[in-house]
């Protein structure tokens, strides 16, 4: 029990579970999953599917935040990637051709990675503060996306492209599979190699990392490139899901949601220690929150207040200082005398 509560993922997971349960109370069929049209169908599947882009963006963001940076440009990259892919596909004779879609997807992803690389260069080479370096791309990138779409929606009608963000494979949403694969690969890359440790070292103490011989610049550039790539995939998913590239609105304010997901997951914005699983949980919490708002019929004008309250509760619950101060004070009169060391230990660890 102690080990479970002490685990760093306990609280984000608990919050997610509570939120899902709350939904069941309001919408009894919330947990039901059926097979419809040959694929899984249900609210939980929706959450996974619609949360996929956010999970990816937050994943990249986690790695950047681990190095002590931040990437505000992810929303713009999401828009650019979707716009470019749709632009290329819509220009093709046969939109359904797999090869054409593959080329478009590849180009969009390369461009996204290049944009991430560009951010990385500014942060690591030129030495501009990450928030400003990426702010530039956040502003200009949105313009680039609109430039590609000429400010209009680009519709595509391409079944292979539709698969990425809205299709199903083996009854499972393809996007969810992609996310699972990317998360797994990232997890392996980060924890099975020394990458994670080195990134944490850079975020934890940049000067000490330099003196220990870590080639931090390369790794920082790598982190931003990866983040750009993740945002690129997310952009494909979003545009594929609605079969439209919306350069104006795709990924708008997504950077805030992504950072929020990272933080809810338990990674500190100051850099250093990070957890990918926590980030995935954080993204799911956010997606569940939106779905909850829609299904429970919270009026639009109080949506934000509701969000604020939930975010506040989530954060307070997660904060050891809060739990110590509030719950202990209340628990104290009832607590057994300090003679029982086990009880004391739990308190320390809780």
């Amino acid at each position, binding site marked *: 029990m102690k080990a479970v509560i002490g685990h760093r993922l306990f609280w984000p997971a608990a919050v997610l579970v509570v939120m899902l349960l709350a939904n069941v109370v309001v919408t009894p069929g919330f947990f039901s999953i059926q097979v419809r049209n040959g694929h899984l169908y249900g609210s939980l599947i929706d959450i996974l599917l619609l949360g996929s882009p956010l999970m990816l963006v937050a994943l990249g963001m986690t790695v950047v935040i681990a190095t002590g940076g931040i990437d505000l440009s992810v929303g713009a990259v999401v828009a650019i990637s979707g716009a470019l892919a749709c632009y290329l596909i819509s220009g093709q004779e046969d939109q359904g051709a797999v090869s054409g879609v593959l080329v478009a997807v590849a180009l969009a992803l390369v461009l996204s990675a290049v944009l991430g690389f560009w951010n990385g260069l500014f942060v690591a080479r030129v030495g501009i503060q990450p928030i400003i370096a990426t702010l530039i791309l956040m502003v200009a990138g949105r313009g680039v996306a609109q430039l590609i779409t000429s400010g209009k929606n680009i519709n595509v009608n391409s079944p292979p492209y539709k698969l990425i963000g809205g299709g199903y494979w083996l009854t499972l949403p393809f996007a969810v599979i992609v996310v699972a694969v990317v998360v797994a690969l990232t997890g392996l890359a980060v924890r099975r190699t020394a*990458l994670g440790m080195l990134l944490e070292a850079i975020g934890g103490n940049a000067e000490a990392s330099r003196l*220990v*011989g870590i080639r931090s610049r390369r790794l920082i550039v790598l982190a931003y490139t990866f983040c750009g790539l993740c945002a690129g995939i997310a952009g494909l998913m979003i545009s594929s899901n609605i079969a439209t590239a919306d350069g104006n609105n795709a990924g708008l304010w997504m950077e805030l949601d992504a950072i929020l997901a990272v933080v809810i997951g338990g990674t500190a914005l100051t850099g250093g220690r990070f957890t990918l699983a926590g980030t995935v949980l954080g993204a799911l919490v956010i997606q569940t929150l939106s779905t909850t708002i829609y299904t429970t019929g919270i009026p639009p004008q109080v949506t934000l207040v509701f969000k604020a309250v939930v975010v506040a509760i989530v954060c307070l619950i997660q904060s050891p200082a809060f739990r110590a101060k509030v719950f202990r004070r209340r628990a104290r009169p009832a607590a057994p005398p*300090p003679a029982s060391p086990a009880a004391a230990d739990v308190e320390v660890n809780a």
Partner: protein
Amino acid sequence: MPGAVLEMIGVSKGFPGVRALADVDFQLFPGEIHALMGENGAGKSTLIKVLTGVHAADAGEVRLGGERVSVTGPQHAQTLGISTVYQEVNLCPNLTVAENVFIGREPSKAGAIRWREIRRRAAELLTRFHVDVDPGARLGTCSLAIQQLVAIVRAVDISAKVLILDEPTSSLDRDEVEQLFTVMRRLRDDGVAILFVSHFLEQVYEVSDRMTVLRNGRLVGEYRTAELSRIDLVGHMTGRTLSTLEQLHVRDETARVQAEPILKAQGVGRRGAIAPFDLEIHPGEVVGLAGLLGSGRTEAARLMFGADVADSGTITLGGKPVPLRGPNAAIDHGVAFCPENRKSEGLIEDLTVGENIVLALQAANGWLRPLSQARRQELVGRYISALRINPADPDMPARNLSGGNQQKVLLARWLITQPKLLILDEPTRGIDVGAKAEIQKLVVSLAEDGVAVLFVSAELEEVLRISHKIEVLRDRRLITEIGNTGTVTPEGILEIIANGTTP
């Protein structure tokens, strides 16, 4: 005898997995200098932090002037008349020296801070302590020793009933220590109660009246300094009877001179930091850098590692000139460097002890070639026990370690890479007597195995004890090199520095 000004009764403090203090009693009287003794991790700093309210005690009470108080934090402690210098410099690097001395109690008129007054008074204070530093300099640009002095100046200037000094002298030279002691004695005579922590037995014996010894968080006893011999003190601290305090004179002159120098610096210098100098280090040789505070030892060491970039001269490593644009080039050639400021430049506090230890090796391997779990455990385990890092838990966050143990972690980090040249900047800072002897022994045995060591220490005796040759620096200039023939004494070196003999 007047009543105790400060008293701790039955104080306990535990951290997850560690019992840092267990039922400790402690008394401090006005007009005494009281030394708190113990090995690394014995609980000295924890006791001090409980006293000043940084940590809340799990049990026990603190009495001030006979009355029970519950100190809520350093600010509260200050208002109660307790002024503290904590271990490791705890000042604000982004503010000026003068401001660090006065912040929180700035002289002001009608709410507006009087800067001129601050600068004037700071300059006065610094001169009084013979600290030669511009009060307007940003603290972060000053050497660690200066920072330590500034912290002392600040604490002493806060006129208090109780003055607590946690390892204030770890980076200081004799002169500075002497000045500090003069001030301490004067304050004692004025009735101030002083709590003093140091791993230098000579200093403790020189200045303290009484001492309290801790071991593993438990009180061993309270003694009058005059009545306790050093051997007994060490015995109390370590719980063992120790005989290795003596010298270790193992020098083999013949082997090293013939070999090619592992590092050769020609005209290497950096404007504003250190004048161009020449230096050769051979395999198996221990080269000591001696000089007074601010003489440029750290700067010289950093240039040879590429931590700072030299703006003149060439460095030859293993026979080839290597441009050092950063630490990586040096590391690739087998150079290792333990910086003097372990908190900001060495340790990565977020990471665990084990991760900190393997970091240098892993960085050299590159991220794609991780150490296998087994090898990692083996290496970490070996060095934790070899250096007696305590607690011996590789998964503990490094920030939770006591100061001395953190230093050992840094040493382990570089030893693991099996360097050809090991640059150690104040490696024994804050390390207890037993461990210090072990580190010195380690350096000697490394040298016997053919490793070259560049050894920087503020403690001349230590430099003399283990180095084959000594480079003497003054005013950021290397003035001479002397072979350590056994006739050289600390006084002799001081004389060279004073006379400014140039080769």
